[in-house]
């Protein structure tokens, strides 16, 4: 019984982390699906989202506003606006001028952007990690007193529900709206979409904006969940989310969701049963293995190289 509870605890923790990875992974997968580049700076966009959310929360607290739903909503909206603007600007400055060149050139540009943004926040906000107030406290516990108790916090429930809402909204947006339809068209064939009168530049910008907004949501949620943020925490999270995107099949949106959840569970099982220090080794090892044996991921389509 206890072992089972312990297992379920790890499962819940894994799914919580995994669903935020999925939110970040959407940004990678959509950009890759459309212009075929790895947006290396996406993890930094997520970090900036978390910082903006914390700034908004602290600002509201200074003003004396403490009504929780309002605080969360304002923080979320602020984070999404700043992150989306950042995503738009990054695409405009660093990626659009190098689009269509050799594969490595946009990637190096993206790495430069990632280093730049990390240090931008580092210089403006200091390098130390800052405590993120846990606004949502409490939760349910299962299991008898005195032995192992499984807990499911309200924070975790919030993360699940928010992720679910975001994913549903994104799916509807992609499948129903005009821009969503254009997005799908551009990802199938950029040149053809252009010929048919779709403003591809706008659609590519829109992709970056959507990805950045979802990353900001993840930033707020993970910031509250972990309880502290620092300018470097976007890097590893970005790498994990990229792993999730590759795991699910890069370019596929349902794949990113699935990959995020699988990666989250794999990680929390490692830290639950083996050792927390090696959980990064497991996720990077997983990434290497997938790329070696099934580069298309779980739900991805094989890429045919034309001569």
């Amino acid at each position, binding site marked *: 019984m206890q072992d089972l509870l312990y297992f379920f605890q790890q499962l819940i923790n894994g799914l919580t982390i995994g669903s935020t990875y999925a939110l970040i992974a959407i940004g990678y997968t959509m950009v890759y699906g459309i212009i075929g*580049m*790895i947006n290396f700076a996406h993890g930094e966009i997520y970090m*900036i989202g978390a*910082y*903006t959310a*914390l*700034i908004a929360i*602290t*600002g509201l607290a*200074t003003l004396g506003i403490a009504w929780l739903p309002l605080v969360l909503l304002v923080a979320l909206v*602020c984070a999404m*606006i*700043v992150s989306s*603007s*950042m995503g*738009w*600007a990054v695409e405009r*400055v*660093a990626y659009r*001028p*190098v689009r269509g*060149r*050799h*594969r*490595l*050139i*946009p*990637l*190096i*540009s993206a*790495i*430069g*952007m990632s*280093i*730049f*943004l990390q*240090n*931008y926040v580092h*210089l*403006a*906000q*200091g390098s*130390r990690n*800052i*405590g993120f107030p846990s606004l949502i406290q409490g939760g349910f516990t299962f299991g008898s007193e005195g032995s192992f108790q499984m807990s499911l916090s309200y924070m975790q429930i919030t993360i699940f529900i928010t992720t679910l809402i975001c994913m549903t909204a994104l799916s509807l947006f992609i499948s129903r709206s005009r821009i969503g339809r254009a997005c799908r068209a551009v990802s199938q064939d950029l040149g053809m979409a252009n010929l048919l009168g779709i403003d591809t530049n706008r659609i590519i910008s829109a992709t970056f904006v959507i990805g950045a907004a979802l990353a900001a949501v993840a930033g707020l949620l993970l910031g509250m969940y972990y309880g502290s943020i620092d300018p470097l925490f976007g*890097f590893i999270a970005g*790498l994990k989310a990229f792993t999730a995107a*590759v795991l699910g099949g890069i370019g596929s949106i349902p794949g990113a969701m699935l990959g995020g959840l699988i990666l989250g569970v794999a990680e929390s099982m490692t830290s639950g049963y083996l050792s927390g*220090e*090696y959980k*990064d*080794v497991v996720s*990077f*090892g997983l*990434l*290497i293995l997938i*790329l*070696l044996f099934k580069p298309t991921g779980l739900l991805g389509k094989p890429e045919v*190289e034309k*001569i």
Partner: protein
Amino acid sequence: MPAQNFKHALFCAVITLIIAYPILGLNLEAQGINVTLTGADTFTIVSVFLAAVVVFLFQLFRDNIMGSLQGALSGLSSGSQKEPMAENKRAKIESWVLTGIVVLALFWPFFVSRGAVDLATLVLIYVMLALGLNVVVGLAGLLDLGYVAFYAVGAYTFALLSQYTGISFWVSLPLGALLAALFGLVLGFPVLRLRGDYLAIVTLGFGEIIRILLNNWTSLTGGPNGIGGIPDPTLFGMEFGRRVKEEGNTSFHETFGIAYSGEHKVIFLYLIALVLAVFTALVIRRFMRMPVGRAWEALREDEIAARSLGLSRTAVKLSAFTIGAFFAGFAGTVFASKQGFISPESFVFLESAIILAIVVLGGMGSQIGVVLAAIAVTILPELAREFSEYRMLVFGAAMVLMMVWRPQGLMPMRRIHIELNKQD
């Protein structure tokens, strides 16, 4: 269309404000558990608004500015057009200049301060690393983001061997390089069939795995505490310390009957690094002219065409990867010996990014460019110490700008070619 330009300019200015103001203008400060928000000083806020105004004006008159800039640039380049020098004459001048620089570098340390020589040693280590990565990224076109792992292998090989078996620097130097090359071979074998950007991520993951292992395998590597007491290199059994540590060795200053000075060791290390860096450059230069070097470039330019001409993709890429790793191992051994202490802190991803930045700034594939970039990137932050915290910010921005404006680097690589004598 002025109206459309105006709207776009306004939009860009607002975006600038949104991305700059919250992060720069409002500072979070941790006081105990509480976090407080303070506004930044007036200077920062004024600069943020100024930046927005500049962006607005630039976007508004974008067409005019770009037009006149283009005109100025084309005027500049047409003015300085001159007859290209004959290739072999140029090569001759180049080799004379290079020999002169090496000779100068040999005698230079005897006249300057200890700190300068120490810094120069570090520069030479970066030169070695950058030349090695240049083979992988610049010549073979394989983006390796985990290059620092091979550097770590070299450094840890020397540190561990000297700690457990007492092996000296000179035995360890080839061993460390060979072990790093072996790591390159073992990693390269499975991953090299991946496409460019996937390869980059896999090597990044590999680099992180090596670092995490070094950090957590406490019983062998000492974990985050690192390994200290790494011995200095010796000159034919002569040690550079005040007292001889090992049986059978003599000390340098006693043998030659000169007064003990700490500088001897520093200069000796510098000279070793110089010889190794020159060796690295020469060996790689040879490789570039050998069939394998041509094959690297052919595969980089057009993989399908190169393969259809019978080049083995795996063998060619693997050779580049292994040779690059070999020289990283070299550099790692020298680094361990110079520092006397190593820990996983020295082998983080940022280090890989710096080496990559050197290669990119210098011009991928160009040896002279890479050497100059290594010197600039290592020395400039030392000269401008008060700006040292902006170092990485500038690096990042420079990488982006180089890719946008001059992806071939500051000193682009020249193709090796032979010109036929003109028939009269």
